[in-house]
């Protein structure tokens, strides 16, 4: 056996492994499983049709809400309330019963004022506090009958749940967001599905403007700062190609993990070598494992060989909430703010 086929096989094996770990990672972060994305266009179309079928008389409480047409969905031109008035009426809000199997979706639903429609949320939907989290609603494995028992009219999930269609229950698949736009689109989709179109649009624009303002107001150093985003204490990280990577990219930060997964074999979630990290010596260390793994600036500093790291000696370790730093919902703004604060207070010697 020569070395070549072997290392190729190692590659594909590690790819497989990385896939497993990546899936597990997503699960850990949001209790979701990500596989088949459904395009916003198709989803919006199906929503519109659905709304048309179920439509009745508009309720007073909903007079400024109406179903969005497909174009409106795509263009994010949701504030044109007149156009919406003309559309067929929304279904009776009292009839909307949502089961959210995605923690991010749960956050979004509550943020657009559709929290009342959520009759149950999965075991990982831990925010906001009044979300009807149900410990028995799990994604691993998913219990379809358990979901049905809540008599939902709509199930929001991050990956298609087999069997729901068979019993005629509407399913809205909102997969792991790859970009900011994905995240905004999902909020709008939820708005359309719940008749909270206006609130959804408002939330999106608010998030957009807030984030823009934070980025604008952050004084980034001339030399790009490097950072390490830690997913757990065995040094799993995310590269720039992931959603969180894009968050850091807003500030022009440089991700040290990119070297570990140049061709995406680890799906953007490589496990880093400690020696490599010590050598890479990132300016900033973001801990997205404070909840899961109890990591703090102190525990990081106590790791063997880490005491000499610049981020440790300079106090540039940022403790993030695991969920905030992994979900693409309304708290994205908090996440961006945290990064901004970190940069602002970063103690980076000029010589660096």
């Amino acid at each position, binding site marked *: 056996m020569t070395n070549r086929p072997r290392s190729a096989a190692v590659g594909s094996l590690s790819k497989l*492994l990385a896939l497993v770990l990546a899936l597990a990672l997503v699960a850990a972060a949001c209790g979701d499983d990500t596989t088949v994305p459904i395009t916003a266009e198709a989803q919006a179309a199906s929503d519109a049709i659905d709304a048309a079928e179920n439509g009745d008389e508009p309720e007073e409480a909903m007079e400024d809400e109406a179903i969005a047409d497909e174009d409106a969905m795509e263009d994010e031109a949701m504030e044109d309330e007149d156009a919406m008035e003309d559309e067929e009426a929304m279904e009776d809000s009292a009839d909307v019963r949502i089961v959210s199997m995605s923690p991010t979706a749960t956050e979004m639903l509550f943020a657009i004022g559709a929290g009342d429609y959520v009759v149950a949320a999965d075991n990982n939907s831990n925010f906001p506090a009044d979300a009807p989290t149900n410990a028995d609603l799990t994604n*691993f494995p998913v219990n379809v009958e358990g979901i049905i028992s809540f008599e939902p009219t709509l199930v929001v999930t991050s990956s298609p749940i087999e069997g729901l269609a068979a019993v005629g229950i509407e399913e809205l698949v909102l997969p792991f967001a790859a970009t900011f736009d994905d995240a905004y689109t999902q909020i709008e989709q939820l708005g359309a599905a719940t008749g909270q179109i206006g609130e959804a649009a408002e939330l999106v624009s608010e998030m957009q403007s807030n984030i823009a303002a934070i980025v604008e107001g952050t004084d980034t150093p001339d030399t790009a700062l490097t950072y390490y985003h830690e997913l757990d204490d065995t040094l799993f990280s995310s590269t720039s190609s992931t959603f969180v990577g894009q968050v850091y990219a807003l500030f022009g930060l440089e991700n040290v993990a990119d070297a570990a997964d140049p061709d995406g074999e680890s799906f953007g979630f490589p496990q880093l*070598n400690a020696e490599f990290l010590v050598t890479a010596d990132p300016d900033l260390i973001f801990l997205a494992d404070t909840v899961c793994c109890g990591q703090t600036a102190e525990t990081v500093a106590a790791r063997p060989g880490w005491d000499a790291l610049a981020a440790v000696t300079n106090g540039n370790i940022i403790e993030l909430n695991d969920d905030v730093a992994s979900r693409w919902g309304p708290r994205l703004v908090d996440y961006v703010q945290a990064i901004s604060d970190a940069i602002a207070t970063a103690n980076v010697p000029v010589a660096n």
Partner: protein
Amino acid sequence: MNARPASIRVSWIVGGVAFVLGSIALALVIGPTPIDRSGVLIESFDAALPGSFDSGLTDQQQSIVANLRLPRVVLGLLVGASLSISGATFQGVFRNPLADPYLLGVAAGGGLGATIAFVYGLGDGQGWFDLVQVFAFAGALSAVFLAWVMGNAASAGVTELGGDRQSSATSLILAGVAVASFFTAIQSFLQQRNTEDIRQVYTWLLGGLTTSGWTEVILLLPIATICVALLLPSGRMLDVLAVGDDEATMLGMSVNRVRLALVVIASLLTASAVAVSGLIAFVGLIIPHTVRLVFGSSYRIIVPMSVIVGAGFLTLSDLVARTALSPSELPIGVVTAFFGAPFFVVILRTAVSR
């Protein structure tokens, strides 16, 4: 007559030690960070005898060698030796070529212990050592204990019915399987109820020396030293056990007492290794077999040679794990299985065709 009883040859020990030293040297000088090779070796001696050598490395390089590479290499040696000698012992005690150190539920027990620690947020790394290690260790030992109690209860029933002693080893293995299934079931349940910890659990289950430091070495070293020292001279007893419980008893061996002692020591050793390194697969199965095929089938040879070969093998496997996809880590279980299995087949073939 110049036939001699099976015994270890000096040349094997010399060769084995050379292999281990070579593995250590390789594992020390190769890494994601390029460091001057002689400097690494000098620094390693300096770490052993602080202040006696000047390696000429930068502080950061010194730290990498002393705090990252060296403990990882040492832990690899310890874990490899521990799993291999435990595997050899289990294979001998149960006269089962498929036996490995995880036979009596150590893996499942360790997995459950670790999962409990993760799920209840005990694995926070606070304090001097990790509670995950404590729980994994406790879980592993309780699984073996449970298997032992169940297996003995079952075999007592069999012996009362006039069945032969042979059945007690079988009962124990079956009890181990039952306990392992049971513990795995609980572990899966906990994991399923706490999906936010799922990745930590998976990572642990795959095993590895990724984040190990001197703490792990200090935890494992005393137990490993004592257990290995106790198991090393047990080869002759394993040879006696090879003729079956009945015959071994008639040859004057207190079979159940010997088996209990060996299982306890080997389990303790395995549980300790598992606690600091997770479930590293294949080592405990393949190394004793490889030794058997290369050096001879007497446990007087297999047991000590497994220690040497296992230590070197795991050190080299970990070297591959941290350099193959550098700077990314490859789970070591993937390496041991991926290189161990074909390597074993090659050895098996040459041994058969001999």
